[in-house]
């Protein structure tokens, strides 16, 4: 009984963690803007946390480079199963304007599996919220499949 309660609440109120992995801050501040009064994703039950061990959904902005790919992998591994990953912005999807630079590996999917890609440079808060909602659908499905 208790198990099904947890299952239900996880999908209803997902906790997100945001990791900036070499973004130019454009997407970053848009992710933060989602949490503030005008966009306020908390009304959907989304809570921002600072500890990957508490999180269900990982939001990643920016390109992966040779140094932060280990950090990204580490954060992903610390999150409990099931989990969803949302890559935000042109950088997170493919490397964006920086894709040819010497220290850039590419999009987030070079290192960890990505569930949702949010386009834009920077992605608008509306698009990010949209991405989170789509991500939640996938997350709920994973929770279902988990047992």
């Amino acid at each position, binding site marked *: 009984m208790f198990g099904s309660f947890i299952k239900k609440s996880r999908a209803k109120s997902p906790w997100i963690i945001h990791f900036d992995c070499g973004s130019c801050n454009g997407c970053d501040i848009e992710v933060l803007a989602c949490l503030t009064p005008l966009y306020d994703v908390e009304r959907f039950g989304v809570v921002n946390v600072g500890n990957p061990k508490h999180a269900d959904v990982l939001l990643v902005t920016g390109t992966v480079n*040779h*140094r932060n790919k280990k950090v990204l992998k580490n954060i992903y591994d610390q999150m409990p199963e099931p989990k969803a990953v949302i890559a935000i912005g042109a950088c997170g999807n493919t490397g964006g304007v920086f894709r*040819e630079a*010497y*220290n850039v590996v590419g999009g987030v999917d070079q290192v960890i599996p990505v569930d949702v890609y949010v386009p834009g440079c920077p992605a608008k808060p509306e698009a990010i919220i949209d991405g989170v909602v789509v991500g939640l659908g996938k997350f709920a499905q994973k929770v279902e499949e988990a047992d």
Partner: protein
Amino acid sequence: MIGKVIDVTVDNVVGEVMKMKNDGHRLVTFSTYQEGEDGLGILYHFDKELETTHLRMTVKRDAPIPSVSGVYFAALLVENEIRDQWDVKFDGLVLDFNRSLYLDPEVTQVPLVSNVKIEPKK
């Protein structure tokens, strides 16, 4: 280029920078550029009451460059950056990251040298 440019050499750069410091100049930063096949040009930018002064030095990349981080502590970051970007050595750097300020060991190329080109991706 705005501001006075003074040419210096490897031998007197530390003394000249010391002089700038005693004159009350603020170290803004260094800029580097490729000079010939294996040379490196370094510009030391200074500012005093919005007036700019530059010191220009040309060196060979394989010989160590005297560090001015003993004079201006703030030079340490930019000298480490130049070390990363051009694979040069600084003599007497107060905190040497040994080419790991920005780059990880996986990156073996020397980024800014002009014979290394980056390719457009498909």
